[in-house]
């Protein structure tokens, strides 16, 4: 196995395009040949600092519709960057096919190798194989869809004015995080068809327009008042947690183009949904892959010792995990945790101890680490990954402990469990729970509306552990919701015993909708 290349791939820091090709080919050989990865075709794009900040501002996507908030983020990033308060990422990678990796032009040759290994192979493999991405995102269609979104927003602005489009998008963005389908069951999104669908709908409306319909007298309205509350809710598909979906389908006064905008924002939220659930795994995979590839390249003599030292330096920066009482601490570093767990799994598979055999009978000592890891990458998300594969040994290494902060307890924050026999299970369960979107994100759903009556929209926030919504933000989001809905909106925060803890109510402002 250890054949040595006669010549390193590069010397020094300079790189050129022919070299990028060679670097990519060298990484590819190891990634596909030795690690057995399965990736989308890659497209490497070399960009400047400014373009990188641009990409940051539009959530990493190469094209996006225009909105002031992206300008705000751009300005923010730029200011931080200019004052030297923040460095930039070395790369951005996009879950699309072909998989686009942005490389910064001022990376050194070593960094370019690292980034290619990390993004073009690590992330790329994860995007292509992980079940969440396969289930929820359409890698082939996303760029085309964003292009459609961009031109559709521009078209709306031209036709309906900047202000109204901007306000609609503001409102939609506020509700974006609560507008994803969390459970599969619907058919997979086909983003190409989305664009086609919109065009056909509009064509049909134009073709079949007949002014005479306006003059047809409306018959006596169907008497639907005797619908029971349950039946009424069932007809509307309530309770519904996908707020924008509900508005798009049900809001009485939105115009067609506004519905389409809500749909666009909702689709984009859905596209990013898996990324939020797989931070640890996604970054862990990429870090593990780049580590394997770089080490192997060094073994083969394809990169020299100096370059390898440079790599190790930035690698250790990436996987640095400060302790909880360190001023730099801000939660678990997904790179660090993911990488540590995957290295640990490798160890369990190839060189287990008795404890590992007891905890992981299925994988301990099976010998083929890559097969086990590939299976994990394909079939888990952060929450299930941690709850299945966090080993006692790693908990000891990271000195994990669980704290319980009850405001009612005057003594302070209680240490619930530490890294010992009694604590392993509890720590693991708690850590896994902290990656569960069901626990992290406030659980809000639309529960009732009487379309025949006052049309007031009622939402419930199911409060967990007494954690109420941040009030100022909640009110503002609710205002946006009321503006879109066009009638009053009421949000109740209820606990598990159905006790109402707090209520927020909002009346619509006449900013979005045409007058009745």
């Amino acid at each position, binding site marked *: 196995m250890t054949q040595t290349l006669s010549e390193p791939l590069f010397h020094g820091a300079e790189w050129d395009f022919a070299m990028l090709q060679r670097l990519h080919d060298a990484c590819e050989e190891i990634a596909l040949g030795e690690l057995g990865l399965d990736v989308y075709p890659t497209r490497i794009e070399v960009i400047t600092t400014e373009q990188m900040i641009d990409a940051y501002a539009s959530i990493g996507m190469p094209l996006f519709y225009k909105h002031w908030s992206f300008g705000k983020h751009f300005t923010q990033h730029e200011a931080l960057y200019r004052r030297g308060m923040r460095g930039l990422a070395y790369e951005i990678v996009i879950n699309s096919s072909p998989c686009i990796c942005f490389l910064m032009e001022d990376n050194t040759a070593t960094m370019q190798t690292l980034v290619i290994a990390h993004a073009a192979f690590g992330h790329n493999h994860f995007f292509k194989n992980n079940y969440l991405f396969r289930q929820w995102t359409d890698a082939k269609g996303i760029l085309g869809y964003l292009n459609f979104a961009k031109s559709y927003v521009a078209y709306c602005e031209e036709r309906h004015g900047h202000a109204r489009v901007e306000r609609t998008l503001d409102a939609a963005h506020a509700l974006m995080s609560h507008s994803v389908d969390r459970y599969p069951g619907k058919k997979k999104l086909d983003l190409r068809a989305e664009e086609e669908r919109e065009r056909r709908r509009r064509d049909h409306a134009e073709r079949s327009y007949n002014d005479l319909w306006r003059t047809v007298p409306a018959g006596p309205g169907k008497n639907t008042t005797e619908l029971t509350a349950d039946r009424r809710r069932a007809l509307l598909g309530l309770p519904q947690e996908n707020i924008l979906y509900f508005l798009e389908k049900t809001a009485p006064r939105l115009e067609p183009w506004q519905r389409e905008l809500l749909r666009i924002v909702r689709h984009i939220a859905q596209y990013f949904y898996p990324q939020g659930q797989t931070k640890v795994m996604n970054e862990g995979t990429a870090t593990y892959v780049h580590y394997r590839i770089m080490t192997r390249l060094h073994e083969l003599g394809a990169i020299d010792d100096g370059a390898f030292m440079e790599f190790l330096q930035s690698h250790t920066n990436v996987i640095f995990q400060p302790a*909880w009482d360190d001023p730099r601490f801000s939660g678990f570093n997904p790179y660090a945790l993911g990488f540590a767990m995957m290295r640990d799994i490798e160890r369990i598979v190839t060189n287990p101890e008795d404890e590992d055999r007891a905890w992981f009978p299925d994988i301990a000592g099976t010998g083929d680490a890559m097969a086990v890891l590939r299976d994990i990458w394909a079939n888990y998300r952060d929450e299930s990954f941690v709850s299945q594969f966090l080993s006692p040994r790693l908990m000891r290494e990271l000195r994990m*402990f669980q704290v319980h902060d009850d405001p009612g307890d005057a003594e302070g924050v*209680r240490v619930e469990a530490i890294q010992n026999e009694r604590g392993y299970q509890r720590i693991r369960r708690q850590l896994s729970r902290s990656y569960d979107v069901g626990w992290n*994100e406030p659980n809000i759903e639309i529960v009732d509306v009487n379309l025949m009556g006052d049309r007031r929209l009622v939402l419930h926030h199911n409060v967990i552990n007494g*954690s109420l919504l941040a009030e100022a933000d909640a009110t503002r989001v609710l205002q946006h919701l009321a503006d879109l809905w066009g009638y009053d909106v009421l949000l109740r925060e209820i606990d598990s015993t159905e006790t109402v803890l707090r209520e927020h109510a909002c009346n619509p402002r006449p900013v979005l909708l045409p007058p009745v």
Partner: protein
Amino acid sequence: MQILDRRLNPGGKSLENRQRFLRRAKAVIQRAVRDSSQDRNIPDILQGGEISIPPDGLGEPRFRSGPGGIQDAVLPGNRTYSEGDYIPRPEGGSGGQGSGAGQGGGDAEDAFRFMLTREEFLDLFLEDLELPDLAKRRLADVEREGVRRAGYTVSGSPVNLAVTQTMRLAMARRIALRRPRIQEVEQLEAELADCTDEPHRVTLQAEIDRLRTRMRRIPYIDPIDIRFRRFETVPRPIAQAVMFCLMDVSGSMSEHMKDLAKRFYMLLYIFLTKRYRHVEIVFIRHTDRAEEVDEETFFRSPATGGTLVSSALEAMQRIVRERYRPEDWNIYAAQASDGDNAYGDSEMTASLLTNAILPVSQYFAYLEVGEAGQHDNPAMPNSALWGVYERLRSEGHFLAMRKVSDRSEIYPVFRDLFQRRREAKAVA
């Protein structure tokens, strides 16, 4: 695998988003710009720079959990604790903040700081300002010429070929001259191929030949069809304006007053050079004699002496007569002084103003500078010049007058004087 070099792509992709952001936050940013320009030097203002604005109105709210409630968290780096230990909450931290658990981020309610470019800064800084009553427009020198479409021409450069027009003319000509259509010929040829009747074949052949000859004779596109788009240059009327800056530099002006006056003129200078390409500026400074000076001298060189305001007005009158015919020029004047004037000069000043200056000027602004706090004191009598101007005003002459005694008042007063006015002109 593909490698693309995107570096040469046009930059400024988020420029439009940035402009949208600036537009959205305009009110706040404008306030910040004006606040920040108060304690800056003029050259710094020209550089643009960093401003900070409060984040309200720019928030992107989300439903998220607030503080409070029972929090559980797993943390790394336990060195000393055993199960059941208590970690005291830090002083002042309430609820879940103490553990630092999973509370990353928190509310970023800090002011939002960012850079404005020079252009953005000046645009916001000078917005809404304009020279009042810029009424006289005339065809000036060659400089301002526009190009506009002017029909079609038969000669021109290939880039200006008007394809549609050319094809339209060609078609008209083909129809008028009855050029046979190619389909007709093809139809006849097909008929000929199928035809077995010899005499009929001959007639068909003759007909085809005739049509073909005719087609050759009448070309599809003839040079006489070709048209080019024609452009012509048109002179545009422009408004020419001249601004007279009259400054008192006599001995009675203290350093503080001179500083105020200079700041005022600096603002005026920035405003005019930035906003109007066709404004000339004449600097006149006076003691008991007036002289026309260049910008550098006006702002930087010291001078001292007695005070004769009329000398400056005379100089202005002379310059207007020599160089700026009132029929062609919009004439403006801004005068800064501490209000002192030699005894006996007041009448001269008043008559010069009423007879010579005001009739030709569109706008005359007078700025009286004083020692710090001086103008707040109601017991202080009005200065000599203020009195004279006040009288002229009450007689119905149009004069704008303001007092300034502190640096921070300069900008508001300046805005006040050159604010865009919607209401009808109240000129005498």
